[in-house]
C-alpha cells in the first residue's frame, strides 16, 4: 500500500528518530510512504505569527504538490505541520475568495481532495488491526500519553479526538499492553515553539507536565509531536531546574513504542538519539489478544 507522506523539517533534522521510527513500522506493516516531491517547510508558528497569507501559502503549496503527484491520503507525523495543514485546508475550503487568492500566490491549484492524517489517525486506520499478528512483545509499562495542543485543538478544524481527555493514543498504548494512566496534563501546552525564545517558560510548562506524569507513576511519556518531544526531552535540564528535582523518565514517540512491541531494533527506531536515555526493558513476550474499548467512541460528545 502507498500513502502520501510529509516529513516536515523537524523529522529531517532534530527529530530524525521520529522519522526513523515511522518508517520502520510502516515498513514492517508493508506500507510505503511516498514523500511529496520538492516539499517545502509549512511555515510553522513563525509564519502565522507574522503573516496570515504566508502562513496559508506555504502549506498550500505542499498540498497542491501532493495533489499533483496523485496522492489522496497524506500522513503528517509532525503535529505542528499537521495543524498548519488542517488549518489551511479548513480556511481555503470555507472561503472561496481566499482560496482563489492563495492559488494565485502559490501559482498552483489546490482542489482540496486530500485527506490529512496525523500519526495517530494513521495508526488507527492502517496499523492497529494488524498489531495482533505482528506484535512480539507487550509494552507492559505504566505510561502517560501526552497529546499536547496541536493534535486536538482547535477541534472545529481538526475533527480528530475529543479536545479534553482524548483517548486514541491511550487506546493504541493499551493495545500494546501498556497501562495508560489518567492524568491532568494530557492536553496542556508544553511551550511549543518557544523552546529557543522563551526557554524559561518552556521549562515551567514542560516541567509541570513531567512532574504530574511522574507523580502518578508513569514510567514513560508517549508523544506524537516533535516539538513536544524536544521540549520534554532536550529541555530536561530546564525542567529539572523548575521542578527542583531530577527526573529521568524517558519520552518516546508512539511509533517508537509500537516499534519496540514489534521487536524492531532500538537503534533503527532512533532511541539512541534521545537526551533522556530510554532504559525501559523487560518487555514480556506477547501472547494474548487485548480487546480495548475506546470510551470516546461510546459517548456522544
Amino acid at each position: 500500500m502507498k500513502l502520501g507522506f510529509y516529513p516536515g523539517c523537524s523529522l529531517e533534522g532534530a527529530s530524525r528518530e521520529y522519522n526513523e521510527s515511522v518508517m520502520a513500522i510502516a515498513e514492517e506493516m508493508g506500507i510505503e510512504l511516498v514523500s511529496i516531491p520538492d516539499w517545502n517547510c509549512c511555515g510553522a508558528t513563525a509564519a502565522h505569527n507574522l503573516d496570515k497569507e504566508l502562513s496559508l501559502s506555504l502549506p498550500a503549496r505542499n498540498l497542491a504538490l501532493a495533489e499533483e503527484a496523485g496522492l489522496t491520503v497524506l500522513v503528517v507525523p509532525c503535529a505542528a505541520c499537521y495543524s498548519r495543514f488542517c488549518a489551511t485546508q479548513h480556511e481555503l475550503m470555507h472561503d472561496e475568495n481566499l482560496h482563489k487568492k492563495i492559488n494565485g500566490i502559490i501559482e498552483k491549484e489546490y482542489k482540496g481532495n486530500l485527506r490529512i492524517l496525523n500519526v495517530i489517525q494513521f495508526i488507527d486506520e492502517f496499523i492497529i488491526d494488524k498489531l495482533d499478528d505482528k506484535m512480539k512483545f507487550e509494552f507492559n509499562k505504566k505510561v502517560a500519553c501526552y497529546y499536547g495542543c496541536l493534535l486536538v485543538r482547535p477541534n472545529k478544524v481538526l475533527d480528530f479526538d475529543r479536545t479534553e481527555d482524548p483517548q486514541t493514543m491511550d487506546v493504541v498504548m493499551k493495545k500494546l499492553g501498556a497501562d495508560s494512566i489518567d492524568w491532568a496534563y494530557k492536553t496542556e501546552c508544553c511551550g511549543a515553539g518557544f523552546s529557543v525564545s522563551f526557554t524559561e517558560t518552556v521549562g515551567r510548562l514542560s516541567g509541570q507536565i513531567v512532574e504530574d506524569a511522574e507523580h502518578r507513576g508513569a514510567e514513560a511519556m508517549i508523544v506524537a509531536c516533535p516539538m513536544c518531544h524536544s521540549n520534554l526531552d532536550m529541555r530536561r535540564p530546564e525542567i529539572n531546574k523548575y521542578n527542583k528535582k531530577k527526573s529521568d523518565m524517558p519520552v518516546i514517540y508512539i511509533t517508537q513504542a509500537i516499534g519496540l512491541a514489534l521487536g524492531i531494533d532500538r537503534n533503527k527506531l532512533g532511541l539512541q538519539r534521545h537526551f533522556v536515555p530510554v532504559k525501559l526493558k523487560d518487555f514480556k513476550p506477547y501472547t494474548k489478544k487485548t480487546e480495548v474499548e475506546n470510551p470516546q467512541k461510546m459517548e456522544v460528545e
Partner: protein
Amino acid sequence: MSDSHNHLVDNSLSGKIKQNTGVSLSRCYQCGKCSAGCPVSSDMDFPPSLLIRKLQTGLPEHEEEVLRSKSIWYCLTCEMCISRCPMEVDIPPMMDYLRSESLRLKKANPAAKNIIRFHKAFLDSIEQTGRLYEMGLIVDYKARALNLTQDVALAPSMFAKGKLKIMPELIKNRKNIKQIFQKTINKKQK
C-alpha cells in the same frame, strides 16, 4: 424585509479585528475562562480576557496598551482559550492580527524582541532554502539576539546524536518560494 442595520465602518481596533479576522470581541462576556486556562497568562501583562476587555472599551489609551503589550507575543497559539470559551471568541487569530498590527505600527514590546527575531530568522531560512535549516537558524538567531551563550551546550550534543545537519537542504523550486514571500510578507514589511 431587510433586518440588517447599517453600521458605519468601525475604526476601533476591535472593529478592525472583526473586519480582518471575523472575530467579534463584543461576544466576550468577561468570564475569564480563557485566562484561567491559558498556560502563559501568568507571564502576560494582561491575561487574554483582560486584553479583550481593553479592546471592548474602544478607548485609544487602552488600544495602545494592547499593541504595546507583552501578552500578544507570549501567546503560544495553543488554542486552549478558544476550545474552552463558552462564547467561542476565537482568540488566537485575534492575537495573530494584533501581532501584525503591532509590528506594522512599530509598537512591539521590547520583551518580544527575541520572539520576533526568532520568527524572522526562521522565515529567512525558509525563504532562502525552502526548508528550515536548524543549524543556520540557531546561528542566525543567536547572532540577532546577541545571546551567544544560551544553548551553546545543546548544539554539540545535538550533533553527536545526529540531530543537527551541517548543510542546509535546498528544495528545487526555490523561485516559487521566493515568489510566495514576495507576494505576501515582503510586500507588507520590507
